[in-house]
Structure formats: C-alpha cells, structure tokens
C-alpha cells in the first residue's frame, strides 16, 4: 500500500444474516400494534391476520417470529403456481403467507389462495398474511377471496419516527458487525429519508464504502455516501 490513492477494493457481498428472533425485533410505536396482534395469537377474531407496511419495515421478520414459534409452514405467492392447495395448507392449521400481495392481478393464484384459506378456516386454523398494502386496496378478481381478505383484521406497520429510525440503523449496523457512534446515527437520522428502506440502502452503501476504502463508518464517510442513496419511489406514501 504505497499509493496515496488506493484503488477501490473489490467488495464481495458475502451476505450477512440478520438476527430474526423475537428478541431482535425492535418494538416501537410504529409496530407495537402488529406485535400485540402477533402475541395475541391464536385469539384472533377471524381465520387470519394481515400485517402490512412499507418495504423493509419488519413484516417478514415478525411473520417469521410467529412462524417459528408455532412451526407453521411459510408459503409465498409463487408457491401457489406449482403446489396444490391441500399441500400448502398442510394439517397444522397455521400458515404464514409471506408477500401475499403477490396474488394481485393473478386469478389462478387467487383461486388457489381461496382454497388454502378455506381449508385452513375449516380446521379452525389461522393464516398470517404479510403485504406492502392492505387487502382492501388490492385488485382481486375473485370476489369470494376479496371479501374474505377484507373481513380480516389488517394492522399496519407505520413508517418509522426518528427514534425508531435510529434504532433500526443501529440494528442494521450491528447485523453487519459495524460499530458506529451515536453521533453518526444522529447525523444520519436528521439528513436521510424517513423510511425503513432508506435505512437499509444507507447501511448497505456505508458498509460497501467502508470496506472498499478501508475506512471506519464516520460522519465524513456518511457525508460522502448520503447524496448517493437516492430515495424510495413512494416515500410520500403513508400507510
């Protein structure tokens, strides 16, 4: 390393494993309701529950906490294409349907989803759905399914306030084993877009930049990175 301007080091994204236990979930004002609903299982007033909120807001995390707790299978919208409803519904009386809005605009999936729903409901079981938006706003061609989904309790994960945003940044840094000071967090929170997605993009960008330039995550580095993280497409949208 004799050059004054070291070439950008090639960074391999080896992936990081986010901590996904219940204890790792940050309970705050924006998701307290969703957490309360999850904790209330199986005392839900309907055969299912919908948790919805912006990207990276922790829906899947919460879904996986529930799923792990009761050993329920997880299914995705794509599973509806190639597995039969009785197989998907299983016989546990509980299913976690991750990214359920993936059935929008796809009548074949909707039909399969209806049958999964009916099978679970008939057993007195429960389905947990996660999605970006609530079912009331989905375009669902199959009326039978739409009315069932609309009748379910739907609970939103709200966009983060500053305190949550700070905590989320801390957690994301910790997941990547990056140690950053409070001042850095504070600096970021007051200058970044207030969304979970932006927090993820920022931390990823900082991690990459820090590795490439072999620097620590500091305010100067943050200053360089912030202008380049862009903004989420629908950042004005409120749940």
């Amino acid at each position: 390393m004799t050059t004054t301007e070291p070439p950008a080091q090639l960074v391999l994204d080896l992936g990081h494993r986010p901590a996904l236990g219940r204890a790792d979930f940050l309970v705050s004002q924006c998701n307290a309701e969703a957490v309360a609903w999850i904790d209330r299982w199986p005392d839900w007033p309907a055969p299912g529950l919908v948790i919805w909120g912006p990207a990276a807001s922790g829906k899947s995390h919460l879904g996986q906490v529930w799923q792990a707790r009761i050993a329920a299978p997880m299914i995705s919208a794509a599973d509806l294409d190639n597995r039969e409803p009785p197989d998907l519904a299983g016989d546990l009386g509980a299913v976690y349907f991750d990214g359920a809005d993936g059935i929008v605009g796809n009548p074949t999936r909707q039909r399969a989803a209806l049958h999964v729903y009916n099978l679970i409901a008939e057993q007195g079981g429960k389905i947990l759905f996660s999605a970006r938006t609530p079912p009331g706003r989905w375009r669902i061609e199959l009326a039978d399914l739409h009315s069932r989904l609309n009748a379910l309790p739907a609970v939103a994960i709200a966009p983060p306030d500053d305190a949550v945003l700070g905590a989320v940044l801390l957690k994301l840094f910790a997941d990547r084993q990056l140690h950053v000071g409070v001042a850095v967090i504070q600096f970021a929170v007051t200058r970044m877009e207030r969304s979970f997605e932006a927090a993820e993009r920022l931390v990823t960008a900082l991690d990459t930049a820090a590795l490439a330039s072999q620097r620590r995550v500091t305010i100067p580095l943050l200053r360089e990175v912030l202008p380049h993280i862009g903004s989420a497409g629908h950042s004005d949208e409120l749940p």
Partner: protein
Amino acid sequence: MTEQWEHADTTLVEQWTRIRAQLRAEVGDAAFNSWLKPLTLGEMLGDRLRIAVPTRFMRDWIEENYGNRLTEFWQEENANVAQVEIIVEPIRATVPAPGGPPRSPIGQRHDGDIASMSGAFEHANTGNAVTTDPEDVRALLDQRFVFKNFIVGRTNELAHAAARRVAESDGVPFNPLFLFGGVGLGKTHLMHAIAWHITERDPSRRVLYMSAEKFMYQFIRALRFRTTMDFKEQFRSVHILMIDDIQFICGKDSTQEEFFHTFNALVDQNRQIVVSADKSPSDLDGMEERLRSRLGCGLVADIHPADYELRLGILQDKAEQLGARMPDKVLEFLAHKITSNVRELEGALNRIVAQSTLVGRPVTLETTQEILRDLLRANDRRVTIEEIQKRVAEHFNIRLADMHSARRARAVARPRQVAMYLAKQLTARSLPEIGRKFGGRDHTTVMHAVRKVDELRAMDNSFNEDVELLKRMLEI
C-alpha cells in the same frame, strides 16, 4: 387387502369407539390427536387384534408409549382379545367413508354426525391415516353459523325460509335446494345451520358438507389413486349432501360428470341435496346443460345484498353476541359505509372490538375510522409537501409564495414553520429535502421549526388544535 376391512364386525367398531374415547380422556387431546387419532381398527386374527398405523415410525412410537394401555383397554372390552398387534398399513384410500355401510371401519361413523371429507385431504400429503372423529367433523362447521344467529330481513327471507324447511322436514321438500347470491351474504351460514339443525334433531341422519372445489380435488385424487369406488361410496350413503360454491366446478367437465351421477343417485334414493352458488343455475357459464337443468329443478332461492336496515340489525345482534358496548353512532356509521357484503360488515365489527380491547380504548366514531382506515379509504393518500404548503397557506390566509419567500414577519414565518412541521410529520422526506422545498432553507432551519411548533403545541391549546385540525384534514 380390501377384504380385511370388509368383515370387521360392528361390535369391534363400537368397542374401538369407546376405547378411543377412554384413550383421549387419559392422554389428553394433544397427544391423542398427534398419535392415537390416526390409528385404525383392523381385524381379529385368532386372539390377536390388529390396529393399523400409517408409518413405521408411528408404530414404534405407539408400541413404546401406548402399547400396554391399548392392550389393557382391549382386554377389558373384549374377552377374546389376548394381544394387540400394531401393523403398518399405508393409507389405503385416504378418503374416509363417512358413515358408510359397515364395510369399512376406516373413518366409520356411528353417531350419524355430519361427516366431512376434509380430514382426508389435509392428511393426504403427509401420509397420516384419517379418521373422522365426531369432534373433528364438528370442528369443520362454524359454530356461529346456526339459525339463531341468522338475521332475517327482506333480502334473505326466502332463502332462510327454504333452509328452515329443509332442516325441519323429515322428507325431502324440494330437491335440490339451490341457494344463490353474491359473496359474503350468508349462503354458507344457512348451509351450516341446516347441518347443525338436522344432526341435533336426528343424529342418525348423515350429513355431508363440502365445497365444490374440495369435491373436485377429492375426485381428482381418487382418479389418481384408483379409489373412485370409495369416492362414490361415501356420497351414496349420506342422507343430506351439501355442496357449497358449485360455480367452482364450471368448466371442469369430468368433475361435473361425476357430480351429475352422484346427484342423480341421491335424488333416486330420495336424499336431500343442497347446493349453493354465486349465480342462478341458468347463469352458470361453463356448466353442462343437463346439470344446470337438474340444479334448477328444485327450489331456487336467492339472497340479495343486505339493505341498510338489515345491515344495522346484523351489527346490533353481532355486537350483542360479542358482548361489546358499541355506540349507536358507530353501528350506524358501519351500516352506512360497508355495503359490499355481510362478511365484510361483520369482519369490520370484529376488528373494531378486537382492536379496542387490545389497546384498551373505548370505541368511538374516531377510533372506528382510524381502525378501518385501510378499508374505508380506497387509496393511500400521498401527502406531498406542496399540498401541505397549499393547505397551510389557505388555513392561515397567506400567499402560497410566502412558503418559499425569505420574509420573516411572524404572520408568514409561523405558518411556514407549521408547514415544515407537518412535512416532517406526514411525509418521509429528509430534512434537507424539506428545507429545499421551502425556498432552499437549511435542514437546521427545518429542525428549528419542528422544535418550535412542538413547544407551541404544548403551551398553547388553541394553536395545538389548529395544527391537529390541519393534520387531520391532510390525512383524510
């Protein structure tokens, strides 16, 4: 292998039913359901009684943990039994014969209760044996779906009267009873109510309820596993067959064909059939003509969307059932707003009750609107900074241009701060970006505005109400 099951005598079956009940009482529901429920009764070979389990693992487990008790129970019940032998018998037909003639002890029903095939299906893929416990079967019907809970109004009185008639009649008043109407209006409720009523009145009558879709899946399965005889058998032995949402077999020719034969066989035996659909028989596109005409030859009763009175009546009744104190205003609001169908109406009420219990808040019109925001508003409003500036400018009667201007007079500076505050609260924009939209101000200026407005809200009640009002106007 089939003969093995055919000669099982009814005494053994009755003894087995008692033993199962004893086992359940002894080991508890959880263990029973996991391990003992899948056991099926086999035959007597000399003094050995055979019990079948679907997998080797289960056999080992049951021998290890329950073997002795099983033998003891059998010895108490039947002096001829010296030994209980547990054998591995992969599921023959995963379709149980609900209450069929005493030829098959698998899933045999002796209480004449409502049988359903769902068990077969759910277990089909896991290879577990299937039995249809009376408890299981009852669990398939919604307990709330009884006649008592069906609120009758102008729009559903015909369907209700017809369903009552079928449920209360000893004969077959009309065949089939065809109930149709839009989604979530109570067709399934009426069918379940018929099933509950009949089985409570006369437990010897066998009722089979299933969705058309399940009929189809079961039929396809039976074809695949060459068990169509069992499939047919289970239908031909019921007194009342109820098929929900028949529209789901439209366009499925072979399933329709099979259903047509089942239908005819039951009608010939003077058994009652109840069918529901989302349309009248003549409007069922993709349904064979001969089946359509059969479906329409009994009584066709439609359910119309509930009118306001009925919606309100349903809500009042439901709230009472839930033991929830709901202000009239809230019920009226719901009855006005949620007009699509009864299912969604009840779902909304459930949500409000559950949510308010959860957070320990009384139900008010405001909390109701808040909880049902996702249903009542077709779209998330995207509050933009521009919109906030416009509203705030109108509210304080200043020019929109002053939002961007450098003027510092309090008459314009305060509204501008309020707008910055709301932009911070209601959008996800970063402080620097908010600053830019207010005439290129620094992000620290925005931070100062946010702090200032927070302070003023805490000190000045009328100012606080002003801001709150603006916020709500922008959010709705």
